[in-house]
């Protein structure tokens, strides 16, 4: 059952991913991306990570994607912008690059081995509830990376403010 669900989610995510890139209408792309995010939340649910699944939907689908829509509406793109290729015969270069990348990934996946198991087994996570287990891990073992991520976001926020703020001297 779990494997069947996994294959369903995986197939839909890949199919939608392709459709999003090839879609001519950017708003349709965003809509398909919404469906894609839901299927990605499905992966988290399969991994017993219900907190992450909910946050995935709230943050990505609920906030970030709406901002994408805003940007699209503000620039008001109804159809795709066509440009002449940057490099002549760029298509062939692209294909070669893509195949090389694919082979690299394939080799990487084939050499993949499972790491050692941590102290959070499936039973323990289910008993603690995922929210609590994740909170404990973040605020004890991984407090330093967590704080660094927080500082990074703060810097980004301040940077955004500094860029967006207009200087109005004597106005």
């Amino acid at each position, binding site marked *: 059952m779990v494997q069947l669900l996994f294959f369903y989610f995986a197939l839909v995510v890949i199919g939608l991913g392709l459709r999003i890139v090839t879609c001519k*209408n950017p708003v349709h792309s965003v809509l398909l991306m*919404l469906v894609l995010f839901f299927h990605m939340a499905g992966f988290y649910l399969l991994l017993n990570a219900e907190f992450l699944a909910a946050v995935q939907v709230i943050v990505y689908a609920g906030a970030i994607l709406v901002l994408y829509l805003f940007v699209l509406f503000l620039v008001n793109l109804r159809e795709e912008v066509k440009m002449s290729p940057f490099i002549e015969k760029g298509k062939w270069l692209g294909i070669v690059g893509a195949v090389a990348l694919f082979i690299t990934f394939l080799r990487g996946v084939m050499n993949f081995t499972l790491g050692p198991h941590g102290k959070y087994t499936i039973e323990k996570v289910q008993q603690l509830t995922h*929210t609590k287990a994740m909170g404990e891990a973040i605020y004890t073992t991984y407090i330093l990376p967590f704080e660094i991520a927080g500082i990074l976001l703060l810097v980004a926020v301040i940077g955004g403010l500094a860029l967006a703020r207009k200087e109005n001297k004597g106005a």
Partner: protein
Amino acid sequence: MELLWILIKILIVFAVVMFHVMYATYFERKVIGHMQVRMGPMRVGPHGILQPIADGLKLFFKEDIIPTVADRKVFYAAPLICLISALSAVAVVPFFEGFAIANINIGILYIFAMSSLASYGVVLAGWSSNSKYSFLGGLRSSAQVISYEVAMGLSLVGVMMLSGSLNLTDIVHAQMKSPFKIYLIPQIIGFFVFVIAMFAETNRTPFDLPEAESELVAGYCTEYSGMRFALFFMAEYIGMIVMSCLAVVCFLGGWSGPFDVPGIPFFWFLIKVYFFIFVYYWVRATLPRYRYDQLMALGWKVLIPLALLNIVLTGIIKSMFG
């Protein structure tokens, strides 16, 4: 067997919610009518009691008009997104002891996720109609919902801290064990922020700018007619019911009451939800609409700092006495 029971539960809840939506429209017209010294609907049945059925039939048989320049696929999908996201949020609400369609550990977050989805229906309806009024209504709505969702989420963090859980059933149980029996008293700031955010989140007066009829005709649903318009309408009322349920579960102790009513375990829950629905109508009949910049200033400069203050205070009190 278990699956069958879940299906039966879904059918029951669906029927009950739809019935409430029908009569919520009737009571809105009655309540506002009486507040303005009118009678409200009186013609269909005694005291107009069959008015919602007449309205439903009329909307169902009306011609379904689609603007020629509309983006058809999105135009069809938008009302469905609204309705489905509103209805699926009902799935986690515990109506009485042991009765929720899905008793999941992240109930609150699930409701947030679903309510944030509803804004897609609105913004896409506005965009796909290809009309100025609809588009402005859609933009206003999405900006408003994003801003107030932050305040609403933060206002409930206090409740999560006190109960130590995101599960709605556990939150009610934790309230029964708490000294005041309800979180309304220790979380009064959170409740204040939540109720205001609740009005903004469901696009109701005084924050109904997305459908401000004096400036935007009917906002995002200007170009919709017949059944598709009715879907938006239903989604709005279901949204109100869900938000009222969330307020009842998180701040007013859910199904618990001063004494048990034998045979009706959901008695107190319904009374409290009806109270919130009444407050929606009361506010609509009383307050004028906010200006858009006032709305944004209220959300970002008043409600969010207040909600953060509430979190800090709750944390201090919990670490001192908890």
